[in-house]
């Protein structure tokens, strides 16, 4: 599960941005602190980034900054939960969460029910795990309960969802990032998904 990394020098070469821009974006929190990974190399200490994440992010910033100010871009990219609500029927119409999930987990709510961003996020996460074929519907219910109980505890701090199985028995864990978790040998990690990224993906879908 080790992520491919890119050094700062290669990143600047590849994207054509300058040190000044990179540091400015860091100051504006367009690039999260956790992505700056310090490693010692034979030339001394160097900074590395998760390659897929940083390239996608820089692409996004470069595209957005033509018509938005940096502060506006920061608002769009920040991991904090927006005050965004949506009606159930709109979720269905815009295909943000699939019908199956809505029926199963929110079947009893009438169509005009308004969901807060958190709830949409939970449904969205469940939906993406179901679509990947990693999880069954029953497990989805337990995941929903787990996220409802524990996700607000992170108070906007970055966290990760780990979905694991041992001997056919599944369980979920929400852990803060960065953290290291080790399991015994029988445990298989089915999915590991960053909630911060999920929030971002969902935001770009909604807004």
């Amino acid at each position: 599960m080790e992520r491919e990394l890119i050094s700062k020098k290669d990143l600047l070469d590849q994207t054509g941005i300058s040190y000044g821009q990179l540091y400015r974006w860091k100051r504006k929190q367009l690039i999260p602190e956790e992505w700056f990974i310090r490693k010692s190399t034979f030339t001394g200490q160097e900074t590395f980034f998760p390659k897929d994440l940083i390239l996608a992010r820089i692409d996004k910033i470069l595209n957005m900054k033509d018509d938005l100010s940096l502060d506006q871009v920061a608002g769009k990219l920040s991991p904090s939960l927006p005050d965004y609500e949506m009606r159930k029927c709109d979720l269905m119409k815009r295909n943000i969460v699939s019908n199956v999930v809505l029926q199963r987990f929110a079947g009893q709510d009438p169509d005009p029910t308004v969901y807060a961003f958190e709830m949409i996020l939970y449904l969205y996460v469940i939906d993406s795990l179901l679509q990947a074929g990693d999880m069954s519907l029953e497990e989805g219910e337990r995941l929903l309960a787990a996220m409802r109980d524990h996700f607000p505890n992170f108070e906007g701090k970055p966290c990760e969802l780990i979905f694991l199985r041992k001997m056919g028995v599944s369980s979920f864990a929400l852990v803060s990032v960065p953290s290291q978790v080790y399991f015994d040998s029988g445990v298989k990690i089915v999915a590991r998904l960053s909630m911060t990224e999920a929030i971002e993906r969902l935001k770009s879908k909604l807004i």
Partner: protein
Amino acid sequence: MSETVLPDLRLVGTSTAAGGRYNRVKITGECEVSGDLACRKMSAMGNISVEGTLSSDELSLTGEAVIRGTVRAGTIRGRGELRFANAARVDKVDFTGNVSVRGDLEAERFLLSGACSIDGLLNADLLEIRLYGPCRVKEIGGESLVVKRSRVSKLMGLVNAGGPAMLTADVIEGDSVELSNTEAGVVRGNRVVIGPDCAIGKVEYRTSLAVHKSAVVKERVRI
């Protein structure tokens, strides 16, 4: 904090305060704030210490300030000694004296005449340091970085007990970098000028590099 009417806080002499939210804070003398302090404008003369976080749009200081929590400010100006035990995010710093930060310091503009010790990253769009004493920064990053030695410190160097007016850093990265009296492991930039009395391990530059004859650069790489 915009519409509500916030009270002012004025303290003279030796005093303590609990903290809280204020419009203007004026402190003359010695003051210990035991909690978080948030205000629009703050001016302090003397010794002040804040146990919690400090946030202010405008901060002017004469004397010594010790802040244990994180600092968020619009502008910080003044002279004396600043000690932050945590990270700080400031729009503009214009300070004369000694600045020490036990974390990262982020600022759009960082203008300092004096000495400093920053344990983390000093991240500034525009950075100008006039060296009057020893400066120790782990990492510096930004767009335009200028480090000069003040003329006075040459004379003061003869009697100065605090150490020579030098900047020591592990890494310095910027678009335009102008250094003098600096000891650094690696300097990376587009346009790099290494001035007098520098000792640099490695310079990586893109467009231009100029090295003063009294500077020592072990390795030069053009990328």
